[in-house]
């Protein structure tokens, strides 16, 4: 035996040593421990398995229910909670982007104290001691203390209020858009100081008098869901928008009435008058008195004021009354003028006389704005501060130094306060003016609760441990510590969670159903809260205010409309790169401010698209790039709010202008609400202005048929059955191949957009016994368990006939409102880098899905007879074509077709010829022009800790490779894996892509075409289905459903 040993043990060890040394010296790869951060894993967390935490979004007052996905302890994705009554599953772009607030690299990292003008980091003990001393001093000296918090609602609000009471302080709940006039109008007309529950879903006709309810107004995600419901089915509700500037909400209207700014009031009253005088509504006891009050608003008078033909006023009123229930909403921030209360009262009246109150406008689940300070309260605080009556100021979460119009003078008044402490996560404008900053945690890492809607007690659950790089504490704990430090009287619990749980004891008594508190608490956390039905109190008409239309004031000839940015809201989204890079749904502009004006206005001024324009009002003057928009009146210009921050982090600072500075003192007399629609502007050419950076510059279709419509009557044959399914395939007369682009198989049946050709040796398939595969086969064979049984599918070659799925999408353009929530969801899910304005100027945005906006026809109803408003939104992503043009041109097979119909992109194999993008007719491929994922490069898109948000299931792409929509292949794999684990077949709806999940209107449907009963298969066969650029024969896997044309009067 020993003779057969070729070399002895010593030689063997030497050789091994040499080999190891060689391998070690030559193969210094990336350190593997970076991939799996858990060296010692907690026992209850499985690496690779996501955990979902129900919580409540705190990015705006709406308070949508969310589910936060955490992987390995890090929150990485937010989705709408389908069980939550506020949003029912969808989520808006701002909610999606909350993660970037959590991982904001500019968050405050430790307590900071201002010492001779500069910030100095100190420890918590020192900071709390200092704050306690100062606050105690102020309290003992019986000088004024003020507490300003955001619209927290729930327990934190209660704690702050208790704290303020114990300290003898003024407590101000600051919300930039406080809707005072709406509340006040409801108090006066209906006797309820509340914001009602608008039931869009039940409305058969919707008229918006300047409420951007699909963007920012009150509860946009929930409203969008109801709106889509009202607009679906065989008898869609007609939607008329009355506003001087066509907002995104207005762009979804069938008709746009471009009344002069402020004249919405007259139209609403004129409609009410017609309804009353013609006795169209259900009849109201106050008819005679109301008719007297409306005597001045004859259709002819309205025509003079609102520039709407008298006949149109009457026709609208008749349609509105007949639709029953209909719904009139209005008075959004952009329409908040000095007669804001009058407008709201007029709309209440219109709803009242049309019989909508109690049906589509109810006071059951009212929005909780009860504690929100009115602007009068804010002014009182400013006056007190300016007079030196406030010695100490505690600010938490609110940013009045930015959000209060400059004329009110918040910032200079605040500077007079001796000691100012901010309990905040970010160094915003208000915190920057403070003397002490105590970092608070983000809501995603904090326990809490919220009651944004009456009867909906939502819980805020930490979805991740507190980020270690930020030495932050929950605001509740800080308040408690300050209470102890300042020696406030009262029984302060040990910790914020104790306080929170104590507050939920009464709820336990009401909802606990006999279970112990811990069970109830756990169940509530899992569900996201507890909610109850709230009865709708009966409403009677109260007093009728005097109606007077306020005109914008000032020297200029143009009324200035300021509207909240759909992405940035009141400015609080400005420090999030996703939202800055999200194309504005109307202009498609990013990373800045602009002024919208009618092309004729611009022509008079002699400026073109993007040219610098000087905007002068009584108070200020700014230079902005012009955006030429035919959806705005010729006597009106519009500027979005939310930009122009002087602090608030690297993404927000010094970008665009804060248009609030353009306002002069103007308030709604009745409610004190600041009048955002109150100024006139003078325009002139400017020497320079920031650039206008747009992702889509041409908003015409040029007859390319990207976005198509179909008259409703063509689908329904004229019947008006609300339950009719407008997505059914045309029965009977439709012959295969009749429609353009339709494929007909050899057997004569209509083919689905699916795989019908493949490379013989390039795709995985089962190797026949004894078959010899050529050397160039991509995958010689796949194990038997992958290739499954036969199934009748339109694929007849190779392995594809064994594929069990053909993933596809159907997108309903009638439901799509263009809100762009899907875009941000995709950024979050797929680790898409943001690239900044300079790159976007060169068309290098990395978005995998974009919303294309086509302004087919924008004309105010008054001008061209029948109301014409045809703006179409097309979510455009990789179409996963059957005959994909990108696939054949890639020289290295970096992009290829997988058996389940996905157009796959292999990043590792890509060499970056970019040929695929050239040949893609949809231009949906994004190229990594720079290294966005390398921390050492200046182009790094995820500065620590933004990179903590990255989805570990999705590769972070490196420099020089192409990327594109994968139809969330990681979710497909997860869904298939889960089904396999549970030993069941995959069901329709198991897999939801990120864009589909976040869509508030459920316009996007994903599924398996090979399952004929799946929703996507049904929709793909619908008569209104079409494929974008179908003349190119690409056979897309994404089917669009044509938008419906609803002619005037079709709602009756």
């Amino acid at each position, binding site marked *: 035996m020993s003779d057969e040993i070729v070399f002895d043990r010593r030689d063997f060890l030497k050789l091994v040593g040499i080999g190891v040394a060689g391998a070690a010296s030559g193969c210094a790869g990336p350190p593997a421990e970076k991939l799996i951060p858990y060296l010692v894993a907690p026992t209850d967390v499985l690496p690779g398995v996501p955990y979902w935490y129900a919580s409540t979004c705190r990015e705006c007052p709406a308070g949508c229910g969310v589910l936060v996905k955490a992987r390995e302890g890090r929150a990485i994705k937010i989705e709408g909670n389908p069980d939550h009554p506020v949003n029912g599953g969808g989520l808006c772009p701002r909610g999606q982007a909350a993660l970037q607030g959590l991982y904001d690299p500019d968050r405050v990292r430790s307590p900071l104290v201002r010492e001779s003008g500069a910030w100095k980091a100190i420890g918590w003990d020192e900071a709390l001691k200092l704050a306690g001393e100062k606050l105690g001093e102020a309290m003992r000296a019986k000088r004024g203390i003020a507490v300003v918090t955001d619209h927290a609602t729930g327990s934190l609000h209660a704690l702050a209020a208790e704290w303020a009471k114990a300290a003898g302080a003024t407590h101000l709940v600051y919300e930039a858009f406080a809707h005072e006039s709406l509340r006040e109008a409801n108090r006066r007309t209906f006797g309820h100081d509340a914001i009602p529950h608008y039931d869009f879903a039940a409305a058969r006709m919707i008229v918006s008098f300047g409420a951007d309810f699909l963007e920012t107004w009150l509860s946009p995600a929930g409203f969008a869901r109801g709106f889509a419901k009202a607009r679906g089915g065989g008898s869609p509700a007609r939607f008329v928008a009355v506003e001087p500037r066509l907002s995104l909400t207005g762009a979804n209207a069938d008709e746009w009435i471009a009344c002069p700014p402020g004249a919405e009031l007259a139209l609403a009253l004129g409609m009410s008058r017609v309804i009353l005088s013609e006795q169209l509504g259900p009849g109201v006891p106050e008819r005679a008195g109301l008719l007297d009050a409306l005597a001045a608003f004859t259709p002819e008078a309205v025509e003079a004021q609102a520039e709407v033909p008298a006949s149109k006023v009457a026709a609208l009123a008749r349609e509105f009354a007949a639709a029953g229930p209909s719904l009139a909403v209005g008075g959004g921030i952009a329409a908040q003028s000095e007669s804001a209360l009058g407008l709201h009262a007029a709309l209440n009246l219109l709803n009242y006389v049309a019989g909508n109150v109690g049906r589509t406008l109810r006071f059951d689940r009212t929005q909780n704005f009860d504690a929100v300070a009115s602007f009068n309260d804010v002014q009182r605080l400013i006056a007190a501060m300016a007079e030196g009556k406030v010695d100490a100021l505690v600010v938490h979460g609110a940013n009045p130094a930015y959000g209060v119009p400059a004329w009110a003078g918040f910032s200079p008044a605040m500077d007079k306060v001796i000691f100012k402490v901010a309990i905040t996560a970010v160094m915003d404008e208000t915190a920057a003016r403070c003397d002490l900053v105590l970092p608070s945690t983000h809501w995603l890492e904090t326990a809490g609760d919220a009651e944004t809607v009456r009867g909906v007690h939502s819980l805020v659950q930490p979805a991740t441990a507190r980020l270690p790089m930020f030495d932050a504490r929950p605001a509740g704990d800080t308040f408690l510590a300050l209470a102890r430090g300042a020696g406030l009287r009262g029984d302060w619990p040990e910790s914020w969670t104790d306080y929170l749980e104590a507050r939920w004891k009464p709820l336990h008594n009401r909802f606990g159903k006999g279970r112990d508190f811990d069970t109830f608490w756990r169940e509530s956390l899992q569900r996201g809260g507890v909610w109850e039905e709230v009865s709708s109190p009966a409403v009677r008409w109260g007093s009728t205010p005097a109606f007077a239309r306020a005109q914008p004031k000032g020297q200029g000839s143009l009324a200035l409309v300021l509207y909240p940015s759909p992405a940035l809201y009141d400015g609080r989204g400005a420090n999030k790169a996703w939202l800055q890079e999200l194309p504005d749904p109307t202009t498609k502009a990013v990373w800045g401010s602009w002024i919208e004006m009618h092309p004729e206005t611009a022509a008079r001024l002699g400026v073109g698209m993007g040219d610098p324009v000087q905007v002068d009002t009584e108070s200020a003057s700014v230079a902005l790039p012009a955006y030429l928009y035919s959806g705005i009146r010729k006597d009106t210009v519009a500027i979005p709010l939310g930009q122009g921050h002087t602090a608030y982090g690297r993404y927000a600072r010094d970008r665009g202008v804060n248009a609030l500075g353009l306002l002069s003192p103007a308030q709604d007399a009745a409610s004190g609400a600041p009048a955002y629609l109150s100024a006139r502007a003078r325009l002139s050419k400017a020497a320079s202005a920031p650039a206008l950076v747009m992702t*889509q*510059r*041409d908003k*015409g*279709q*040029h*007859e*390319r048929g*990207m976005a198509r419509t179909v008259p409703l009557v063509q689908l329904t044959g004229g019947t008006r059955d609300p339950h009719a399914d407008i997505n059914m395939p045309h029965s009977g007369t439709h012959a295969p191949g009749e429609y353009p682009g339709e494929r007909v198989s050899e057997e004569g049946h209509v083919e689905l957009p699916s795989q019908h050709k493949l*490379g013989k040796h390039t795709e995985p398939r089962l190797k026949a016994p004894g078959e010899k595969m050529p*050397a*160039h*086969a*991509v995958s*010689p064979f796949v194990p038997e368990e992958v290739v499954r049984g036969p199934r009748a599918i339109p694929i007849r070659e190779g392995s594809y006939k064994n594929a069990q799925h053909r993933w596809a999408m159907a997108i309903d353009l009638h439901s799509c409102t263009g809100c762009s929530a899907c875009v941000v969801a995709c950024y979050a899910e797929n680790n898409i880098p943001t690239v900044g304005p300079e*790159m976007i100027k*060169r*068309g*290098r*945005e990395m978005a995998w899905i*974009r919303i*294309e*906006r*086509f302004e087919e026809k924008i004309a105010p109803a008054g001008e061209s007879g029948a109301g014409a408003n045809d703006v179409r939104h097309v979510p*455009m992503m990789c179409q996963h074509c059957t005959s994909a*043009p990108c696939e*054949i*041109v*890639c*020289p*290295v*097979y970096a992009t290829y077709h997988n058996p389940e119909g996905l157009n796959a992109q292999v990043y590792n*194999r*890509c*060499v*970056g*010829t*970019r*040929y695929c*993008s*050239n*040949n893609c*007719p*949809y*231009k949906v491929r*994004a*190229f*990594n*022009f*720079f*290294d966005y994922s390398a921390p050492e*490069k200046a*182009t790094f898109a995820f500065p620590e800790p933004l990179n903590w948000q990255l989805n570990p299931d999705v590769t972070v792409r490196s*420099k*020089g*490779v*192409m990327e594109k929509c994968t139809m969330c292949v990681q979710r497909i794999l997860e869904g298939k894996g889960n089904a396999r684990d549970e030993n069941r077949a995959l069901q329709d709806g198991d897999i939801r892509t990120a864009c589909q999940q976040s869509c508030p209107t459920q316009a996007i449907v994903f599924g398996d075409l090979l399952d004929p009963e799946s929703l996507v298969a049904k929709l793909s066969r619908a008569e209104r289905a079409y494929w*974008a*650029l179908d003349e*190119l024969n690409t056979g897309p896997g994404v089917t669009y459903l044509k938008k419906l044309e609803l002619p005037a009067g079709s709602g009756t």
Partner: protein
Amino acid sequence: VSETTYEPVMDPEDVGKTEHVPATVTQKSLNRDILRMLQRPGWLWWTVFLLDLAVLAVGMVALRNQFVLGIGVAGHTRPVMWASYVANFVFWVGIAHCGTLVSAILFLFRSHFRRAVYRVAEAMTVFGVMTAGLFPIIHLGRPWFPYWLFPYPTQRQIWPNFRSPLEWDVFAVTTYLTVSTIFFLVGIIPDAAAQRDHGKDRFHRLLGAIFSFGWTGANHQWKHFYGAYLYFAAFATPLVLSVHSVVSWDFAMAQLPGWHSTIFAPYFVAGAIFSGVALVINLLIPIRKVFKLEHIVTVDHIEKLSKLVLLTSTIVTYSYGCEFFCAWYGPSAHERDLFWWRFTGHFWWATWAMAICNSVIPLLLWFKRVRRNLVVLFVLCLFVNVGMWFERFVIIITSLARTFDPAGWDINYRMSWTEGAILAGSFAWFFMYFLLFIRLLPAFSIAEIKETLAPPMRRKA
């Protein structure tokens, strides 16, 4: 052994009677005149060469910048994913066409004027392909992986995609580089031997020894030489047509309006010859002037080349017209829109520059006085080369910028300084080789011109 296979290129009767070069040129003076180019370079050459290296260095810095930072430093935009680099590639491949045309096709057609110019054209071909071949690598997002395009055996068993026109390019360009280089090296053998025997210094004699491959001038060597030359001429001739056809299919096989057209192969070949011949003229005019070779490269020769320019210009112009006609006559609204947009849209200046330089200005060549006025001809050929660069620019960039989906319109390409530096660097790269070549190896064919001279006879006094 066999006397039948030797087929002289020229009828022995015609030797000395063609007036190919003036009668003053003798065998001895020809040797002397051409080998004189290999003397120590003077200040002029050094100035030009150092300037050239400086430009090359700028290009290299830009390239290094691009490799380190990413292709984003170039001006590509989302619809315009190919731009100046691919235009440069096509331009240089086009330049590389003329050499083989002159040396191979004209050889087969017995066009004797080629004798005076073909070596310069062949060198231009080799250096042109060497320049062109850089750009497919330069334009990659990950330029460190170009070898993935080659079908080499790996344990991953991944082959390149043979359906992709870019893959065809790999084979077309490498084949062309190989064949044109061999052809160039074969043709230079007898002249290198002359350099070896009559060179002024050891270095040049050594170079001559290397490139003459042991040439002794023996009869059987001449026989094999002509056999090989004929063989490679026949081999290279289809390549002249195929290489640029394949390059054109990079575009024609894609489905974009403005690219997807069957006319592309002949259109590109004609364009390539057009620009290549123009560049040969641009090279010859200064060389014959500086090296005082006006009696060897005569105005007659250059006039014949300029007629080739005129011919190819008309073919190119016809192709433009044909494309427009098809766009107008055809069913595709996309295509109609694109061709209108080319002349009226954002890049109108490039399109008009292309049309004027390639179609209008060469019309002057109908005049004999223009053809024989070397200054005018030189400038005219510069215009042709500018026009042909713009032709590639227009084809590539305008077609991409006007996407099917109007949502991508108006996001137009702007050339960055990096691209400009790399374009300039590519010219410097090309001229670096060319400047070295004319100083290191005989730039004109001694052997072939000698065939046209009267044989040296002892004359009675």
